[in-house]
């Protein structure tokens, strides 16, 4: 194209007033154009994208639904209060089918396709373990809400954190003093014959021993079992406490058959609410549990001494006093675990703000800032209770609740201390390269 008017003629020295005005007008117009505004603010106010690895389908779906509700409520609360470092937060959801192979693909998809800032939200242990290598290779911080001991075992990698929920080793250890002092000294364990059960099999006996109590029998039940009566004669007659952690759909049959086996004369029962998460405690067949005790991470039922923060959290997530969805009493929540999503997102907020996080180039800084965290005070950001955080093993420690089934509700009868759940670190992630 010929430059007939000498527009590009750099030899023209004079700049006419008209030309100057045109230039200023064009420059101003460009600066005010919506596209330009968006571009110039991209670094400072584009939303922080959190990849939510969700168990929307597969065996984790009941938990997944409530993890999604809780996370959405937390993100709304964070955004209403100004976001993270002044930037809005956006959840990008991918379903992992509760499958470890798909989980790893989803983490890679977040890192490379969605280009999220972090990945968050995984519950099932095998999915966490299967996805952890992908998080490490893509150098994307991976905040899980799994309660498994795998993070704290330091067998994963430096990019994996569990700052919003305690791990099962700590939970079991915290239960031992109360069981030994209040339920009995001779304990028989009944657990499913897979990893979740093995944690209880391995960590409870030493914890009880330290309290002067003993596990006198351990009964592992194959995961495919649908009837349990044949196992009950293995329970020693001198058993004072049955410690049960059966999970899955068979739990109703398990409780019913245990009731038929013992009738009205039964030992004390102590269980983990994992068995009955998202299950109505008043379901037919569960009457036998009346008077028994359960571990709960966060109480399902509203308690008389609930803090204002706990009340606000329950209202924000949309659960009623019975721990079911507001307006649908049959839709029972996974209250004992899902608070971890809420608290983890607030830990992410704190760590990002501490790190002065701007974008994916600051992921290493975010890892270090998270490792530097020490304490989370009880309050709106941590409604379950206060926590301490060990940056070397990427795991938080907190209080646990022991609740009694009374009149078809779970009533908290004891709260443990943070110290009850502390143990010697098994390694140190901070020695790994970033």
């Amino acid at each position, binding site marked *: 194209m010929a430059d007939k008017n000498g527009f590009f003629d750099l030899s023209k020295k004079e700049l006419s007033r008209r030309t100057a005005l045109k230039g200023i007008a064009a420059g101003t117009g460009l600066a005010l154009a919506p596209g330009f505004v968006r571009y110039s603010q991209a670094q400072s106010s584009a939303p922080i994208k959190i990849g939510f690895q969700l168990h929307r*389908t597969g065996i984790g779906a009941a938990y997944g639904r409530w993890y999604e509700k809780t996370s959405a409520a937390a993100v709304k609360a964070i955004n209403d209060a100004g976001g993270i470092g002044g930037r809005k937060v956006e959840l990008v959801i991918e379903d992992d089918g509760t*499958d470890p192979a798909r989980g790893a693909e989803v983490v890679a998809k977040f*890192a490379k396709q969605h280009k999220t800032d972090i990945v968050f939200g995984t519950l099932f242990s*095998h999915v966490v373990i*299967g996805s*952890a290598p992908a998080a490490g290779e893509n150098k994307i911080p991976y905040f899980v809400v799994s309660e498994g001991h795998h993070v704290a075992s330091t067998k994963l990698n430096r990019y994996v954190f569990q700052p919003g929920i305690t791990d099962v080793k700590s939970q079991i250890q915290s239960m031992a003093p109360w069981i030994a002092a209040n339920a009995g000294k001779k304990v028989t364990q009944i657990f499913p014959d897979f990893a979740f059960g093995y944690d209880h099999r391995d960590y409870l006996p030493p914890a009880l021993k330290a309290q002067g109590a003993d596990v006198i029998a351990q009964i592992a039940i194959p995961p495919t079992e649908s009837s349990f009566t044949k196992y009950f004669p293995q329970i020693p007659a001198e058993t004072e406490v049955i410690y049960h952690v059966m999970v899955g759909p068979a739990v109703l049959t398990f409780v019913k058959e245990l009731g038929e086996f013992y009738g009205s004369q039964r030992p004390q029962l102590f269980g983990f609410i994992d068995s009955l998460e998202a299950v109505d405690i008043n379901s037919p067949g569960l009457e036998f549990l009346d008077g028994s005790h359960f571990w709960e991470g966060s109480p399902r039922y509203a308690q008389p001494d609930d803090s204002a923060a706990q009340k606000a959290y329950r209202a924000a997530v949309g659960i009623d006093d019975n721990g079911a969805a507001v307006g649908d009493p049959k839709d029972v929540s996974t209250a004992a675990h899902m608070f971890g999503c809420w608290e983890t997102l607030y830990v992410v907020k704190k760590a990002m703000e501490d790190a002065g996080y701007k974008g994916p180039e600051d992921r290493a800084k975010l890892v270090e800032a998270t490792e530097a965290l020490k304490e989370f005070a009880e309050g709106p950001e941590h409604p379950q209770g206060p926590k301490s955080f060990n940056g070397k093993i990427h795991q938080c420690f907190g209080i646990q609740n022991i609740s009694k089934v009374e009149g078809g509700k779970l009533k908290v009868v004891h709260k443990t201390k943070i110290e009850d759940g502390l143990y010697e670190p098994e390694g140190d992630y901070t020695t790994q390269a970033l």
Partner: protein
Amino acid sequence: MRDASPAKTYALHVGVIALLFVLNFVLPDYHQGLFARIMALAVFAMGYNLLFGYVGLLSLGHAMFFSAGLYGAGLTVYHLGWGVPEAFVAGVACGALLALAIGLLALRTSGVAFMIVTMMFAQVFYLLILYFAAWTGGDQGLVIQQASRVISIGGASLDLTNSTVRYMNALALFSVVLLITLAIVRSRFGRVLVAIRENEERTKMLGYDTVANKLAAVVASGAICAASGAAYALLFGYVGSSFASVQYSILPLLWVLLGGAATTLGPLVGTLFMYYVTDIASGFTSAYLLIVGVALILLVLFFPKGILGTIRERWLGWLP
């Protein structure tokens, strides 16, 4: 299979390998990673296809061969600290030995009984993995640390967690197995296998030892599937029992049926298709398995012999 000029056939296969090589430099990051996974799993499908497509033996237990490779490689790295090449060989050897043992027993049956027997053996294998949780990590599985996934040759080292190195390793395995299967199906041995599929009695009458040939096919199939499993453990760093579950026995059958049974490239096409339908559909709805199901039904209706099988039947009779 009609007579084909070997040049055309080899050109097609080398062309596919060349295309996959070029894709490494063209594909966006995420898809590069996905393709590496697809190639590693296509090897699994190729191993399955050798037995199902060419011999006509429908196994519902191939997850055990895949996971024999997965654990054979993974556990030697995790517990014994073996290097990547030795671990890979250990994985393949585990698969081949297991296939030999299972073949000797399962080949006493045929048809539906063969399906059931292989499925039962796979279930036993799966439960053994759970039973020996202290070594296998049970249902949670084990992570192979990044530091263990480095191949050291002389002074140089290849980090399998690097996306390009991983892609190239997956491609190398895929290419070798593709050319081996092509050579097998074009060989005398391959023709005997097809003859067994078409009419075992007649093949016997012609003087062939059909049991020995079938056993050789089971071992070759098991070894190839184990190679896929071993590669998967070493390339992606996770070893878990879900890979031994019945789902992973059904998946290669599905991939092969989709791509075209008894076609050398069908397993790749089927795996690629299933992966992308799942990946794209899951972006739109949580009912993505429904979409996958509808896609499968449509394929069965309009491509009853799988994508490449139908193409071969209608247009390209020379496809191997």
